[in-house]
């Protein structure tokens, strides 16, 4: 199987360490979300994997080989780095044809990916007439051109409309379901939560986390129970007897932290507290991410870089 292996990778631009001794693996058959604020080193890491930038030290390989040694690499690895990379004066189809030709990919495949990305109707229009969302789709079409085992997309949902965001989510799930290795960078938490199985988090060039997404959330966000009652006094009393503490909110609902809905439900029933609402509040990726980043003090309130 083809995985991406990043080993002790470091890249310095002048005195700034864009990527600082980062080690992780991206495995096939699942979608790995690549998280971090702008300037955290996500794009630089992707460029290093593609052999476009030279690492200061360390290695990045795909299936054990440096990208530069791959024969006809588009057939192994598809990448979207920048939706603006297509020349505005070319048609979308011609743009893909030039890429396909260099890796001996048949022209029929160009039309296939144009169809798959919903660009068939504008294939013969110039790229400069495309919206940002259409350019993203063209970039994704280019990444899929060689039917690669490894797909790396940098901020693919940028500029996509809601329909496009659903499309990309399903595409990523499908690619992983086919056993491919999928690495998708994003700074949008809810978006990433909707497609990722695994997370790699960078902050200021360093690796902050490399864990399955559910574990990442559960380790950082305690579950809570949302509850509403007509008799708050009885509820508080019943909870206090079992060592729980309820926090009231202005709209009348209560939150019980560090508790599971099964326990609170039974407890309220036994105490005869009338309930209007009882729900589990799952931790979100956003909460978990903020918890992680708040522990990285130097990480907060840093100026963003391009």
């Amino acid at each position, binding site marked *: 199987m083809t995985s991406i292996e990043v080993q002790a990778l470091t890249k310095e631009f002048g005195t700034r360490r864009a990527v600082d001794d980062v080690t992780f693996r991206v495995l096939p058959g699942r979608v790995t979300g690549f998280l971090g604020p702008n300037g955290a080193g996500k794009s630089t890491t992707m460029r290093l994997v593609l052999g476009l930038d030279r690492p200061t030290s360390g290695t990045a390989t795909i299936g054990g080989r440096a990208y530069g040694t791959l024969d006809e690499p588009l057939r192994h690895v598809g990448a979207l780095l920048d939706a603006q*990379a297509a020349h505005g004066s070319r048609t979308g189809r011609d743009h893909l044809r030039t890429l396909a030709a260099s890796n001996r990919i048949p022209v029929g495949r160009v039309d296939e990916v144009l169809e798959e990305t919903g660009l068939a109707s504008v294939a013969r229009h110039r790229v400069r007439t495309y919206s940002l969302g259409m350019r993203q789709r063209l970039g994704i079409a280019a990444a899929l051109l060689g039917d690669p085992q490894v797909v790396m997309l940098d901020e693919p949902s940028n500029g996509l409309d809601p329909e496009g965001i659903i499309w990309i989510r399903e595409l990523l799930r499908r690619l992983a379901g086919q056993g491919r290795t999928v690495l998708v960078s994003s700074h949008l938490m809810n978006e990433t939560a909707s497609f990722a199985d695994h997370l790699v988090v960078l902050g200021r060039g360093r690796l902050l986390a490399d864990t399955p997404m559910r574990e990442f959330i559960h380790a950082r966000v305690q579950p809570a129970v949302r509850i509403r009652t007509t008799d708050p006094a009885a509820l508080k009393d019943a909870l206090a007897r079992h060592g729980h503490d309820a926090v009231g909110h202005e709209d009348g609902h209560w939150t019980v932290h560090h508790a599971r809905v099964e326990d609170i439900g039974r407890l309220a029933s036994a105490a005869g507290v009338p309930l209007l609402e009882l729900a589990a509040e799952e931790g979100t990726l956003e909460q978990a991410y903020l918890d992680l980043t708040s522990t990285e003090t130097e990480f907060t309130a840093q100026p963003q870089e391009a």
Partner: protein
Amino acid sequence: MASTPAPHPFAPVLHSEWLKIRTLRSLLGALVALFAATTAFSALAGVSETSDPEFDPLFMSLSGVAPGQIAAICFGAMAVSSEFHGGGLRLSLAAVPRRGRWFAAKLCAIAVPTLAVGLVTAFTALVVARAGLGDAASGLSTGEQARGVVGCAIYLTLMALFAAGIAALLRSGVGALSLIIPFILVVSFVIGDATGAGVADFLPDRAGQAVLYETPDRTLGPWAGLGVTALWTAAALAAGAWSIRRRDA
């Protein structure tokens, strides 16, 4: 994945680079401009009155190259600079990670059409200008005319490649053009006037233009002059290749 690293064959890369040129209207436009400007100015030179006793009928016939070469330079610079558009180079080098091979294919895709259009252009310019010059050009031998046409096409190709090398070095077509075009239009003339013959005859454009004269009144002969231009071009391409190969994309 292949277990043995097979070399990336050159032909598909060349095919891709040729497609890139064919699919950009501005590049095709530059080649059309090369033909149109050169032949039009040569035709004008052919019908204009000349009282200069030292007038050189071969250079007069090919004098349209002076403005025409700007189009060749634009073609070479733009063919390279179209890659530096919004991270386009990254896409190209992700498809062809062997950068030397990629740059060589790019240069072939610049050189071959320039040479072909240059040959047609020089031949047409000569025919058109001779029609205007009449007897004044009757002394030209077939060998001189053939040398003028072939040399002119090679000169234009070298200038296009020179611009390609500078554009790759500067990673900017505008940068390359704003360096080369003022140089050709102004600096070369000024140095030529100030120093007379000598130093100026070794400048990239003036050296190669020796091939356009029936009897070059210069330090360098026709082929030696073209050789000096070729050295300039080789230096520009080496610098451009260094930039492509060594720098982060």
